């Protein structure tokens, strides 16, 4: 089996790289275990937590940060392509040029964001709201969305909030099982004629409101149910992220995957890479669990296997390592230095990742592997949560690598 490029990991970063390479005429293979961080999506991509314009903020990042390795100019140039890139896959994202806007989190906090999915609430400022009277509606019995928390956050900004619980007989079947009232199951039930019923109930309970805020539990397969509800309800609807799993996140991953395969990419689901054959400073091929007899060969390889919770990195009491190729990892030597005592402190382990050269080529035994590049949260030097740069690093490094590979850099 020969490919131009093999991508290991089917999350946001891997899919971005794969799609871009297919667009650029490559023949690629993607190996994915299935779930990714998109399943825990907030509804927004973050570029960087900052109140400044991006060019200013980029200057202050440490030298080992993936953005610093690329250089601010290249980062901004690549970032400006992301919105159109996703629109091509049917994933519509909105944002402002060169600076952050705000999203409303499931607990009513206003957080900085770069690009936010269409239909989600998106605010230009965290000091004031575009609405005076807000109805926040939940599906009765759904425990992963808390209108009271959101109301409290918005009331601080002067909104008058009304929390409503909507009960639909079509959801009684879910309710009768103690663990079924979860977002994905609700999304499966909220289709077809049920949308009409929901629209009517929402119109009934929201008289006088400027907006209805709803948990993002519509549209597991495509965005149509969410849009259809908007059209059929008397007042504007904006969606707010729920606790995981994220229905729009699952949908986004699927749409990206479908787009990738439509472009001719080969997608291998539910398999994982066990290791590879190296020849000097080149990776010749890789082997997987399900096809242990085969060597998957390619000119180039991209490792986008994620951080700890995606198992891109593993740890034992004595160390942190990269399990597929045993690549060089940047992390503190002593276990006691991986973590800080306070949950909300900046945790050093978050910045651990694979060491690379300036072209994101992985280091192994002190040398860079010429044709093995790393992108996304597996890279060392960034803290997705503390710095608010997870999706930015995932997409921008992936596009950058794809460009470098096809342009032979």
């Amino acid at each position, binding site marked *: 089996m020969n490919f131009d490029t093999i991508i290991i990991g089917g999350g946001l970063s891997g899919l971005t790289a794969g799609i871009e390479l297919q667009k650029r005429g490559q023949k690629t293979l993607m190996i994915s275990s299935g779930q990714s*961080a998109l399943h*825990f*999506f*907030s509804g927004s991509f973050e570029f960087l937590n900052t109140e400044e314009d991006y060019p200013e903020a980029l200057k202050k990042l440490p030298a080992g940060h993936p953005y610093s390795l690329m250089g601010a100019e290249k980062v901004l140039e690549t970032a400006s392509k992301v919105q159109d890139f996703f629109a091509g896959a049917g994933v519509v994202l909105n944002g402002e040029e060169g600076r952050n806007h705000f999203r409303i*989190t*499931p*607990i*009513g*906090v*206003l*957080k900085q964001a770069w690009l936010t999915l269409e239909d989600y609430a998106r605010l230009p400022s965290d000091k004031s709201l575009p609405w005076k009277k807000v109805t926040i509606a939940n599906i*009765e*019995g759904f*425990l*992963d969305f*808390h209108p*009271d*928390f959101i*109301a*409290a956050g918005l009331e601080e900004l002067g909104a008058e909030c009304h929390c409503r619980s909507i009960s639909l007989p079509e959801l009684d079947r879910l*309710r*009768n*099982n*103690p*663990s079924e*009232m979860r977002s994905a199951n609700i999304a499966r039930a909220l289709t077809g004629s049920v949308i009409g019923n929901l629209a009517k109930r929402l119109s009934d309970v929201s008289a006088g409101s400027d907006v209805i805020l709803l948990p993002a539990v519509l549209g597991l397969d495509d965005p149509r149910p969410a849009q259809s509800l908007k059209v059929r309800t008397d007042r504007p609807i904006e969606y707010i*992220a729920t*606790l*995981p799993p994220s229905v729009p996140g699952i949908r986004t991953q699927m749409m990206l995957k479908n787009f990738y395969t439509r472009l001719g990419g080969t997608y291998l689901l539910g398999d994982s890479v066990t290791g590879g054959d190296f020849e000097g400073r080149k990776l010749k091929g890789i082997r997987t669990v399900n096809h242990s007899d085969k060597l998957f060969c390619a000119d180039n390889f991209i490792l986008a296997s994620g*951080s*700890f*919770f995606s*198992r891109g990195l*593993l*740890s*034992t*009491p004595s160390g942190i390592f990269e399990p597929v190729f045993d690549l060089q990892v940047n992390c503190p030597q002593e*276990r*006691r230095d*991986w*973590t800080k*005592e*306070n*949950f*909300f402190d900046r*945790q050093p*382990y*978050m910045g651990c990742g694979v060491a690379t050269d300036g072209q994101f080529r992985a280091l192994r035994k002190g040398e860079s592997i010429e044709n093995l590049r790393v992108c996304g949260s597996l890279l060392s030097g960034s803290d*997705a*949560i*503390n710095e608010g740069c*997870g999706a930015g690093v995932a997409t921008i490094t992936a596009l950058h690598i794809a460009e470098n590979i096809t342009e032979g850099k």
Partner: protein
Amino acid sequence: MKGNNYDVIIIGGGITGAGTARDCAMRGLRTLLVERYDFTSGATGRNHGLLHSGARYAVTDRESATECIQENMILRKIAAHCVEETGGLFITLPEDDLSYQALFASACKAAGIDAEIIDPKEAISLEKSVNPSIIGAVRVPDGAVDPFRLTTANVVDARGFGAEVLTYTEVVGFIRDGERVVGVELRDNITKTRSRKYAGIVINAGGIWGHRIAAMAGATVNMFPAKGALLIFGHRVNNMVINRCRKPSDADILVPGDTISLIGTTSSRIPYDEIDYMSVTPEEVEILMREGRKLAPSLGTTRVLRAYAGVRPLVASDNDPSGRSISRGIVCLDHEKRDGIPGFITITGGKLMTYRLMAEQATDLACRKLGVRKSCETASTPLPGSEKKAKKKEAKRVFSMPGLGGKAAVGRHGGRNGRIDNSDRNGASLVCECEEVSVGEVKYALQELDTRNLINLRRRTRVGMGTCQGELCACRAAGLMANGCTAKALEDLAVFMNERWKGMQPVAWGETLSEAQFTSWIYEGVCGLSRFKEKKGGM
């Protein structure tokens, strides 16, 4: 029974205070129990949860061993819903001295403990997880006991007999009439308001903190804090308690409890001013992992959920001011005789296993002083949740309920489970999937079990104690608890996540580190919870 006058005020909401409140109330005393934070927030909530057979002490401390086996048999009857009769093994490893086994077995017999030397092969067939290289095994009637449930049951029963109970209420001073203690000055630790309550007898059941309480009354009780660290493993590795058959040492007891296993403990003396700030060191984790693997090799590959440490209240004998001679038994001090302070009693020393006996001794002494002639009935009266009738009736009800939440709740609340209302159309819905806690159970805990915050709720229901350590259930429970006061609920959620992390941090590798990253991703990345992060510590 409102008002400010009682026969007896008990200080401390650990198992000893709760047990003493129950005993006093059952004997008809007007009883008030005060606890500065939450029930079980001290040593009661930070131990093995081992239903000792007493075998561990048979060789070194016959008196404690005898007390243990007697109380062990009593708890099986009166607290059946808090006890799991797992049985236990004392194993000899190749590195241990096998000749100790005979001494051990005969000491057990002498203390009245049913200890039986069995073939190592039989031990391996009884307990699959045990180290297969054992050269000796003794079977004993050890078990597991849930100290949270046991305390809750004692509090519920004390209330049933008319006792008043105040949590988050701290004694900040004693009211005196000459030398006599006639009451306590209280501070509500939430509202910061103060009040005074009067009683014929004040009983100090403050565990290690009893040292300070006694000092406030002008009495010296020499206590020596001994820290013990433990590790919780992510699933139930062993079904029987596994001990090392040797002189008691570090990390030689592995106890199964509900869905997990616990290894402990280390033992180290610590300065008194550290007792409120326990943390587990990497060295302690190392000892517990190393010794644990010797008991059950599969611990080496089992996920460690969290680490925690408690403080044993060791009491120096009165006749030894140097503090070298430590009594491990029950210490019931009549401060009238000892220090010339009438109206004041301290009950301390002892252990979880002997709490009922400690309560009995303290209550006997209080009754003598109050001139009340009623004998103790706690050894024969089942605790609420363990009444025979209640259990059968409950079993019938529960198996007609949808899902699994019902069965788990019966385990936690026994016959009291009938008070959980899942009839509301959303009541059976699960808040915590790992521990199968339903909306109805959370509401029951909120209404009837003095639950003011998420940490209280965890102690009452096990929310957030499972393998995910509160990933989604914490936010669901916070939503149910908010009840109009959302900022407080979110601050509480931040405190809860931080408290969970403090137990995970010493063992943050492998699955536990991945899970922690996921939790941060959700609570900080998606939600932005740090906006509500704590300004002060939570209990």
